[in-house]
């Protein structure tokens, strides 16, 4: 006998269903999914040819007695970023570039490292094998110096070749977890069922490779912190709010977690909510899911879900729920700078409710973690707060 998962009655999800309808309507009005710009999933032969073209250019420069150089887009420059409501942050078409010269003492090392990683990518693609960024770093840690150097160069190459990192056969290590009403098949044929009760499934490392995603979920809940995620797991939230999907990136999300969220949205078009701390860091993490990051703006189309809504913890909730002052934490100088920075970002202008919440936080100069709600009861979050928010549309 099959047991139906526990969950609220159908009327519980009325508001959610209406919200979903509005999202679908907006999607249809927008002409469907936005065209994929920036990087794309290139074939192996395309990647190999691109790399060979780069080598040819270098050799031609040398033959002409000119010092070869790479032209790299300035990924981390705001002047090269534009905001589109339907996409989020993305790179402008004619962005500024910087030159990585082979005859400059300052850049010759980077020039060489780019070539080194290109040669490694070439081998990976040729042999149809994959490596993580960490693997690449450890092939010659002394040469590379630190992981950040490798990460940046890989992103630069991805941007330069206009192909996704996956196409370069470089994987990022996934740290995220997923649980709930979802099953899929991985590239190697492994069947994954995320409906596991008290445990969660690791976000797969090959998001592009998973297929046959099946879910009845009414919504996706992105949880900022692993602690909160585990708490919800312990409280059996997925079953109580079934059908739903819960996912966490354990802080700033890695690429695969973001790719999975995007894939869930693209596949199911169900509402996606975030549950983050009421602090600037949490808001920033939420913005990454929704609008993308500056450094990865060249891949925005594959990573952002502009339809995401902020479910909680809202700064206005703190006052509404009379969270005691000793559960609140004063904003640090760094928090304030971050908050000011977020308020200046282009996407906040089209989110008046978010702006208002951030202004409440700025005015009160206080922040709170989700765990602050435990002052009411240990399971207040999963038993009262979230169900009420979901039932009555308490998202912005």
């Amino acid at each position, binding site marked *: 006998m099959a047991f139906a998962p526990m969950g609220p009655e159908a009327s519980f999800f009325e508001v959610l269903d209406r919200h979903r309808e509005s999202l679908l309507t907006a999607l249809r009005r927008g002409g469907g999914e936005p065209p994929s710009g920036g990087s794309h999933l290139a074939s192996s032969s395309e990647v190999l040819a691109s790399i060979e073209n780069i*080598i*040819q250019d270098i*050799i031609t420069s040398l033959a002409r007695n000119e010092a070869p150089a790479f032209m790299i887009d300035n990924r981390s420059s705001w002047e090269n970023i534009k905001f589109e409501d339907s996409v989020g942050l993305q790179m402008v078409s004619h962005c500024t570039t910087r030159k990585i010269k082979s005859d*400059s003492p300052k850049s010759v090392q980077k020039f060489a490292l780019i070539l080194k990683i290109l*040669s490694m990518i070439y*081998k990976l693609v040729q042999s149809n094998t994959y490596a993580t960024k960490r693997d690449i770093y450890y092939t010659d840690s002394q040469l590379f110096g630190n992981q950040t150097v490798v990460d940046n160069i890989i992103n630069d190459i991805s941007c330069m070749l206009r192909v996704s990192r996956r196409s370069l056969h470089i994987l990022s290590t996934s740290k995220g977890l997923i649980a709930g009403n979802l099953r899929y098949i991985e590239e190697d044929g492994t069947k994954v069922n995320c409906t596991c009760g008290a445990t969660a499934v690791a976000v797969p490392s090959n998001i592009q490779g998973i297929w046959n995603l099946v879910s009845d979920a009414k919504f996706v809940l992105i949880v900022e912190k692993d602690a909160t995620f585990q708490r919800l797991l312990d409280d059996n939230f997925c079953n109580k709010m079934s059908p739903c999907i819960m996912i966490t990136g354990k802080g700033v999300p890695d690429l695969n977690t973001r790719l999975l969220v995007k894939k869930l949205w693209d596949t199911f078009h169900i509402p996606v909510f975030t549950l983050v701390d009421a602090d600037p860091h949490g808001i920033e993490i939420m913005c990454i899911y929704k609008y993308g990051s500056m450094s990865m703006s060249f891949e925005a189309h594959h990573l952002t879900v502009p339809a995401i809504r902020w479910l909680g913890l809202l700064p206005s909730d703190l006052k509404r729920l009379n969270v005691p002052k000793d559960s609140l934490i004063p904003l640090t100088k760094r928090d304030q700078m971050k908050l000011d920075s977020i308020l200046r970002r282009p996407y906040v202008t089209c989110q008046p409710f978010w702006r208002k919440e951030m202004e409440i936080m700025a005015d009160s100069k206080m922040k709170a973690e989700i765990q602050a709600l435990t002052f009411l009861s240990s399971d207040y979050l999963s038993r009262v707060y979230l169900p009420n928010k979901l039932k009555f549309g308490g998202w912005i």
Partner: protein
Amino acid sequence: MEGTAVTVFEILRFLIIHWKCDIEVSKGALLEGQLVISIEGLNSKHQTNALHCVTTIASAGSLFGGMVLKKFLKEIQSLLPRISAKLTWTSEEGSYSQDMTGVTPFQMIFEVDEKPRTLMTDCLVIKHLLRKIIMVHPKIRFNFSVKVNGILSTEFFGVENEPTLNLWNGIALVVDSQHYASRPKFDTIESYCSRIHPVLGHPVMLFIPDDVTGMDLLGELILTPAVALCPSPKVFSNQLDSISSVSIFLYGPLGLPLILSTWEQPVTTFFKDTSSLIDWKKYHLCMVPNLDLNLDRDLVLPDVSYQVESREGDQSQNMDLQGQTLLLFLFVDFHSAFPVQQMEIWGVYTLLTTHLTAILVESHSVVQDSIQFIVDQVLEQHHQAAKAQQKLQAPLSVAVNSIMSILTGSTRSSFRKMCLQTLQAADTQEFGTKLHKLFCEITQHQFLHRCSCEVKQQLTLEKKDSAQSTEDAPDNSSLELLTDTRGQAGNKRLKRGSPSVEEMRTPLHSARAPSPSEAALGGSDPTAAPLTPSGREACETHSRALEPGRASLGSRLEDALWLQEVANLSEWLSPSPGP
């Protein structure tokens, strides 16, 4: 009886002092003229196994026009009582022939009896002496001939068209490296610069010990050191231990060699201690005095020579052929607020030759500080250049290997073929070699500490003077007594694309310390020389490895900036105590 060599030197010394002081040569002008020295030896009638040598020193042309000959002879005889040789003047006042310009040539003759072997040694000594003189008086030429029992040998000493570094007070240092050290055996023309690049040190005042009796000076003795590596690499090697020897050259006032020769007098006790001037330990070098007094060499013989001690503790005879030589020039000059008289210069010279050790000991710390500073600078530049080169090599290797990895791994024949064709390589091995070479060539000139001569050469190619087309004078040195075997150091040579006497400019070393970029990029460019207020010898440092296209603009700009800076430093230029 004094030897021929000593007598010749004393006379030349007197001539040059007289020339400079009494014939109103302007202070900064180089002495210019030609002297003919000839020795004729015939079997002596008074001594067995001896030659009666008649030495003639004569001027050619307008060298000593205006000199009162009788007075000159009287003065020289009073100053050189030691010379027991018969000293005569062939021309009486009023009876000498005059050339078209109305200028008076002169001739001095002295006679001594010497053993043939002594004469042979003296001739070698005289040659070395002449070389030393022309190294700082590049416009003086000597014609030296020896005739023994009818067999004649003539040699010409002159460096007129060679590059020089203008110093001060009418002397200039010849910077053609072939005079100072042999090139390493493994060298190619490409590796080393044809010039040395002296770094001038801070002038320091020498202290005269109280117990040194002698003349009371109405001025100060100033020592200015200069250091250079020879040969100077175009692209620096990365090993300080490529230095295999040190040569020290001592010059007194007016650029006269201070010590006649090391085989005449022992090396001063001061120099026997190899660390008396330079702390070698900081460079992990162990120096020992080099007592190999090989006169039979084409090079300018140093007054003091050290060798790097080998690991086994033995001294290699030919180490100077294997590595670089650190050249240290010590110029001692006399500065006075009053016009300096000839006798005063002579007195200073005598003081220095007799009490050099005591003076150097008394002034040891300031002398050592001044020299150490510039040695540190030269070797530090060396070190920085080597570091930069090492820093460059690693990434280039990575780049080359990465490209090779892609090329050799590619299955696309059109790509591989295109790459090979572009570099005109027959196979991947040749491709790799050419790739590496191209990377090195393209990147080296940008930021390696390249010898600035090459930049200057490109700028001055248009300034070749007519002497460049002069062919070598015939080599007549087949004399049995003179055993020169290689190209004549002082003979005229075909210019190798370098301009004629060229002023290399140096900044005021003491007025400012070189900036890190200058220290790093200056190569072995000369730095500091005291300057005349007129700025005639205004200096600049070509401390940047300029791209050829920008070099002329850059150097003109630097000229202007330096002239401006120098114009404000007149009070520094008056003699002052050392650091």
